[in-house]
């Protein structure tokens, strides 16, 4: 069998394999590759005792600040969050290269306690889903100019996803400060 035929046969075999795999019922929900379901994320963030969600309206000065961080208008007018004491949890979304990245962020006493990628839809940059990458955000706080207090090292070939996560971390810290500021 000559090499051309070998190539065709291998391609055909792989094609059959791929079709079979694509037709198999997916492990995750029919929608996206859910890396971590929101319920699990929240349960982990509040030791199993998840508070009722509250709503924060993104208006006025807050809206301006969020817009400055994201570089575009915040899609949502209202954001749901979960709060108990000095801890707040947020589920936010931002586009990496072409697809939105759904991210869970826990802020404790004004510093990032945890970042977890809940749904990752991009075809590159799988590294951002893993703790060895998101661990960089632990303890991060927001400066007076709304920047993170540290540099986040990126992943070659996935810089846009890394930047998206960094922007979301800053937004979460900003909104956390807003909900926990003393009522005048």
């Amino acid at each position, binding site marked *: 069998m*000559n*090499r*051309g035929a*070998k*190539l065709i046969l*291998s*391609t055909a075999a*792989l*094609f059959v394999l*791929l079709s079979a*795999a*694509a037709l198999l019922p*997916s*492990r*995750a929900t029919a*929608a*996206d*590759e859910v*890396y971590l379901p929101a319920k699990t994320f929240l349960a982990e963030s509040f030791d199993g005792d998840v508070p009722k969600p509250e709503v924060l*309206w993104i208006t006025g000065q807050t809206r301006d600040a969020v817009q400055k961080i994201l570089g575009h208008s915040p*899609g*949502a*007018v*209202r954001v749901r969050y979960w709060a108990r004491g000095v801890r707040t949890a947020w589920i936010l979304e931002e586009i990496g*290269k*072409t*697809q939105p990245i759904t991210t869970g962020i826990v802020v404790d006493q004004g510093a990032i306690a945890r970042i977890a990628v809940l749904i990752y*839809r991009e*075809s590159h940059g*799988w*590294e951002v889903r*893993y703790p*060895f*990458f998101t661990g*960089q955000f632990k303890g991060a706080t927001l400066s007076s100019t709304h920047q993170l207090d540290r*540099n*986040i*090292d*990126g*992943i*070659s*070939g996935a*810089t846009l996803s890394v*930047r998206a996560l960094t922007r979301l971390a800053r937004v979460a810290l900003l909104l956390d400060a807003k909900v926990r500021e003393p009522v005048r």
Partner: protein
Amino acid sequence: MKSKNTRRGLGCILLATGALAAGTASAQDQPPSQEEMWRIIQEQQKAMEEQKREIERLKTQVDETNEKVEATGERVEEVAKEPSKGGMVEGWWNKTTIGGYGELHYNGGLRDEIDFHRFVLFFGHQFTDRIRFFSEVELEHSLAGEGEPGEVELEQAYVEFDLTERTQAKVGLFLLPIGILNETHEPPTFFGVERNIVETNIVPTTWWEGGVAGRAILGRGFSADLAYHSGLEVATTGSGAYLIRGGRQKVAEAPAEDPAVTGRLKWTGMPGVELALSAQYQDDLTQGAEGVDAVLLETHAAIRRGPWSLRALYARWDLNGDQPEAIGRDQQYGWYVEPGYIFNTRFGDLGFFARYAETDNTAGDTADSKLEETTVGLNYWPHPQVVLKADYQFQSVPAGMVDDDRVNLGVGFMF
């Protein structure tokens, strides 16, 4: 019986008290009578009840307003997600993305030219969450056609499948997983106006082939790629015999007799660090002419931690055949090291770099055929996706060639 004096004294006291009382009483109004006070209390009671009713009315109004605001907020979010304005139809435009990059170069020295080196457009489409299409079309040197300096090329066009959470496969025309630049070469992602000589002469970036490829995330920061694809066809005669770059077929009615297999093991377990090892085997680099099998080995480190940047790469071809051996082309290698430092300023990022690179496409013989290039320069990013570049390169060429020490300037963008 009181004396006249006592009576007079008492009278004085009474008068005084009376005067005092009268004086005090005139400083305040006459205290209201009981009826008046009752009337006042009743009026105040009425006013309070009126206010209570008003507060209740306002409360209801606020509740209704809140309801309206909630409903408006919900609707705004729905519309924001569904640009087709509330319809149930999701158009292809929601799932299609366009991107691209471009670079304009000025080369001084002997080259002395200004050239829009590359203008590239990416088109991608997401069919389902697990199946997507991606393509890259490039126009080089502005003008393509018979006798023109440029070319229009299809550099990528493949369908990609997410098989499981950790594995992917693609079929079509794709970039080979070798080197640092081959898969990521948008102008803002590397230092220097022109690409380095190692990833030009040894790893012939941009290098794409047609075939199938799979990727798997192995855990602990490791990932692996394996591709089975069309191969190179190197010349067997002339001064360019067995040179790698000239062997790229670009999947343009390419001979499919001798495919190649490429594998890569990559480690990205630490943010900002990429280490990789790639290998390629092709049964016959001449596509049936002479039976020259070849192996390519490439390894690199690409590190960007804080302001520090470091790239180092080594690549080597071993061709197995009498003909290439006879002219010393059975061994071709190259390597480079490139440290850099990037400052974050208020007006963007400014990075400085130095690079030493050497290649030898005729390393199999003893004659001096080494090409060395030392480049120093800077990149300025006013925005992460826009870059201005300036560098100076010193060349050291083998005997018989002319070296071209020159300045290069460039502007590039990506989106």
